[in-house]
């Protein structure tokens, strides 16, 4: 398998992308942040210094110390450990939500562009309906119908953001369809599925990637906000948003406490956006000519 021509092509293209990204500080910055988040999420039990659920009423609201590097929260739990464990829902929400948005968006966008007619009108109508609601209202309404939980947050966020991908995919597909190389493929006898999967999708992927960088970041913000309102994760499960909500009450007495989850959220957003940007530039073959 490794000798096959398909593998060789993939290897050559990947090497090129990697070489370009190696020179880009954004790739390192974004990449390391993402790695950090992912490692925290996956290896939380191994990394976290303490049990995030263990309460210790005698040592509440303490500042940073040797025992608790980031201090303790209102129930005496180690903040650092909680922060690390909370990377899990962060990863689940951002990746899960984006996957739902992108997959449904691509499917609907492609259908709209290729089939056209009434189906396209229906799909566009669905997009418009979703977009017509201010997102906060739509999300709150859906959450109250389905009931708050991590899964419902992921699904609802995914569905709410989806129209953006659908519209972009449709628009770009319509324009890529007219490209010369697509016409050339048709003249060779390629059928629609080949054209879609081999010619169109890879070329619109870059736009999708840019959007997803931004959206993954904003999904984390949403989850934080919803949890802050008590509509996201429910205790004892914890996310950075939940931590924000808990720290908010103690902002006078223990001001540092709110800093950590806020920083975590900001850092994650930064990581996703910069990495996506770097990847987008690297994936575009025309942007990287050695003059």
């Amino acid at each position: 398998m490794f000798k096959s021509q398909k593998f060789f092509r993939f290897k050559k293209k990947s090497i090129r992308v990697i070489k370009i990204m190696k020179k880009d500080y954004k790739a390192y910055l974004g990449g390391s942040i993402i790695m950090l988040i992912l490692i925290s999420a996956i290896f939380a039990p191994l990394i976290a210094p303490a049990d995030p659920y263990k309460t210790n009423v005698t040592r509440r609201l303490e500042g940073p110390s040797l025992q608790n590097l980031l201090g303790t929260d209102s129930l005496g739990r180690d903040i650092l450990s909680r922060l690390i464990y909370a990377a899990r829902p962060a990863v689940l929400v951002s990746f899960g939500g984006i996957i739902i948005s992108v997959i449904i968006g691509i499917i609907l966008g492609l259908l709209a562009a290729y089939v056209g007619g009434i189906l396209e009108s229906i799909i566009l109508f669905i997009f418009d309906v979703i977009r017509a609601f201010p997102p906060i209202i739509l999300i709150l309404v859906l959450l109250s119908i389905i009931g708050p939980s991590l899964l419902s947050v992921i699904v609802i966020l995914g569905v709410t953001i989806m129209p953006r991908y659908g519209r972009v995919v449709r628009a770009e597909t319509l324009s890529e369809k007219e490209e010369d190389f697509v016409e050339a493929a048709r003249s060779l006898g390629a059928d629609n599925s080949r054209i879609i999967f081999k010619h169109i999708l890879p070329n619109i992927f870059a736009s999708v990637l840019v959007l997803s960088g931004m959206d993954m970041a904003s999904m984390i913000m949403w989850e934080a906000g919803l949890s802050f309102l008590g509509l996201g994760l429910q205790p004892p499960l914890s996310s950075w948003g939940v931590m924000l909500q808990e720290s908010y009450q103690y902002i006078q007495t223990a001001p540092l406490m709110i800093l950590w989850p806020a920083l975590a959220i900001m850092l994650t957003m930064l990581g996703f956006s910069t990495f996506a940007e770097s990847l987008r530039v690297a994936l575009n073959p025309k942007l990287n000519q050695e003059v």
Partner: protein
Amino acid sequence: MALVEVKNLKKYFVNNEGLLYKLANKGPIKVKAVDDVSFKIEKEDTLAVVGESGCGKTTVARSVLRLIEPTAGEILYRGRSINNFDKRELKTFRKDAQMILQDPRSSLNPRFIVEEIVSEPLYIHDQIEDDFNLLDRVWELLNLVGLSKRYSELFPHELSGGQARRVGIARALALQPEFIVCDEPTSGLDISIMSAVLNLMKKLQQKYQLTYLWISHNLHEVRYISNKVAVMYLGKIVEITDTDTIFNNSVHPYTEALFSSLRGISDDWNYKEREIIEGEVPSPINPPPGCSFHPRCKYSFDKCKKIEPELEAVEAGHLAACHLYN
């Protein structure tokens, strides 16, 4: 039996703007890009189609391969009408009839490497059993067009215009077609590259008994590469005959005008003293009544303003659409 026969081909593009627009213009705007075009191409012929912007030559090229659906008319390949081909038959047709597009680079997917581009037709038509032979076949094709093995790993933007053009030709040859539609294959290329491409196309034609439909606006090139020429104006063929006759004995006033601006290096005249035809090609949305060339024609008379001339034989193998000869 001719390899390719086009019968009364019509392609109208309809511009469906909103209601108000339609009311203002008394109906949707119809652009008659190709208006009743017929011709035959015999095996191993090169039929050149010349004409200026808006004449419809590009639309004809695409219609012949059914990349655009004709509004009316029939296209016969080896005697069979391709208009009614189903998906399977169309795919088989595409093995035999290929196209080389005008812009050398834009017809190559910027994310594919050359090897992928050239082997794509083989994948489409299931002519690959395993990967091992694939590279050899690709290298063979690249070699045919004068590119060495190392080009197979490059991206389109790493190629020069001439090299990209050759990759397009290699791809077109992959399935061993019989008929190739060449849409301005040398446009945008430097002189020295152009000659290389022309010689290559001629050599390939001899080697593989290829038949060409060659769209061009370069009359020198037409002289070199074709044996038959069709001159188009505003969607119609105004004259069609063999190349020698077109250059030495053309009859249609538009052909005369077109060729009068043709200047070879050894010619004696300069642009200052030349009698140049006036006016521009009218818009295909609103062609003049009668003969569409009459407003610019120095020979036009009454009949030309009212009745459209038919394409009729002026002598054997020479057709023209002009009232001077009917």
